């Protein structure tokens, strides 16, 4: 409504129904968004460069993130196999050992217990070591009896398994307890450092993207300075003038996100081929995840947000600054 003249009908006059106005609002936005896309198409080279910057900036952290995720998935499989070896005291009889077995199998942290008597251990050692009859010359079996404890999945993580080991060590029959997960712990902390680095890198790149989009939009705004002045002279609000530029940011985001998804897919396919062979050697099951719809969705949302943020920052500052004098 007019501020100065009461009763003067301005915008979409009252005869237009609410429903009609509702559709007009969307038709208006659709038209403006398509116009913005057309502007990008008219300067294809410059647009592609900006979209490329956005696309690659999202590709890098996305690829790294997916790799870290997948590495974690692999190590999860290794942990399932983690075993605790308990070397029993030498003076223990078989009966006492069986008693220990019974007690341990009732623990709910433990899914499986196997007993290897010192005799069995020696036989196995003889077979595998290739020392053969040389071992017969020993006057006494030097190997202790061993109990192999497999923790349940819940207690198979490095920390939980470590706690379980401490508990097992307190059993009086146990001489030495060993859990060979130190390397796993190291891998684990390396992975979490890697993850944090990926996050850091992502944040820095996202910042850069916002600034680059902001600057591109700034140049667009300055290029349309005369048009903006005229629009302000005939009564356009800042919001109206800003809208096409925000849509430009939106399109940059959407197209950049699609490009990133495409590039990540290619990279993962390529890595997948070279990994396949390696995985087969180690009999590891690995389906590289990250190519699904959910990942595409979050990448698009992220990159559209970045595009909008960049254009919003720029538009807020520069459209306000252009005033007719």
């Amino acid at each position, binding site marked *: 409504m007019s*501020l100065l003249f009461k009763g003067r009908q301005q915008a979409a006059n009252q005869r237009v129904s609410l429903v009609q106005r509702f559709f007009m609002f969307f038709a208006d936005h659709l038209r403006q968004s398509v116009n913005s896309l057309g502007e990008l198409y008219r300067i294809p080279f410059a647009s592609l460069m900006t979209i490329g910057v956005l696309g690659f900036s999202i590709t890098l952290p996305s690829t790294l993130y997916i790799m870290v995720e997948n590495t974690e998935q692999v190590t999860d499989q290794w942990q399932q196999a983690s075993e605790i070896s308990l070397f029993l005291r030498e003076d223990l009889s078989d009966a006492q050992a069986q008693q220990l077995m019974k007690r341990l199998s009732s623990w709910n942290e433990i899914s499986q217990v196997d007993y290897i008597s010192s005799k069995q251990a020696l036989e196995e050692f003889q077979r595998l070591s290739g020392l053969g009859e040389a071992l017969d010359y020993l006057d006494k079996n030097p190997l202790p009896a061993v109990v192999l404890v497999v923790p349940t999945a819940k207690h198979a993580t490095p920390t939980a398994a470590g706690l379980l080991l401490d508990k097992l060590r307190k059993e009086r029959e146990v001489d030495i307890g060993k859990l060979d997960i130190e390397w796993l712990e190291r891998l684990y902390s390396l992975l979490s450092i890697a993850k944090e680095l990926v996050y850091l890198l992502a944040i820095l790149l996202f910042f850069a993207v916002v600034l680059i989009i902001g600057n591109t939009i700034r140049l667009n705004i300055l290029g349309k300075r*005369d048009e903006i002045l005229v629009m302000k002279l005939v009564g356009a609000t800042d919001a109206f003038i800003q809208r096409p530029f925000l849509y430009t940011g939106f399109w940059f985001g959407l197209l950049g996100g699609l490009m990133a998804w495409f590039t990540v897919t290619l990279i993962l396919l390529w890595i997948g081929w070279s990994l396949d062979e390696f995985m087969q050697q180690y009999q590891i099951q690995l389906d590289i995840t990250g190519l699904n719809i959910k990942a595409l969705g979050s990448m698009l949302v992220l990159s559209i947000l970045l595009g909008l943020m960049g254009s919003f920052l720029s538009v807020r500052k520069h459209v306000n600054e252009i005033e007719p004098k």
Partner: protein
Amino acid sequence: MIKFEDVSKTYPGGQLALSKVNFHIEQGEMAFLTGHSGAGKSTLLKLISLMERPNVGRVLINGHDLGQIKRKQIAYIRRDIGMIFQSHQLLMDKSVFDNVALPLIIEGHTRKTITKRVDAALEMVGLREKTRNLPITLSGGEQQRVGIARAVVNRPPLLLADEPTGNLDPKLSMEIIRLFEDFNSAGVSVFIATHDLGLIARMKYRTLTLKGGRMITDGLSQQEEGWS
């Protein structure tokens, strides 16, 4: 319609543009504002269209103090004022139709209304056949008429013109003034700034004369004393 109460304007840097200006233009009146370049004509118009704010005094339109208008509301104020510029201020890469339609698009009218009103406005200024042309292909007088069509397309109650005949020969200038007279007889208040004294002399309209930022005469155009 337009009322100035002891308005002074000093630009940053100390340049005095207007000093204690008082006048009142009634609703439905047509008046000229004249004076040498640098006398403060443009500043006065800018105070009405809110491109500038006065340092002292009040500017009122239809009884509303423009000093109360917030920055966000300026756009809405300008929709009530049809503005015409010496430099036309047209979008050179848009057709005549799109140029004239701009105020209606901004106000959010339907396609149908826009087409109807733009055609009517172009009819009034005699450019119905040039709808699809680009402004660059038009003559100076035609470009000015596109500017006028844009200013009146949303039927504002007030028209402001800053040197609308600046680059035109006397015959074309007269045609433009006739257009303003048409709008005026339809009830629109018209306020025209010009230094084209010959043009004003041929008509009997109220003329306000500025000199060095001061209003020196306010009356019919014949009274030109104190000018040179």
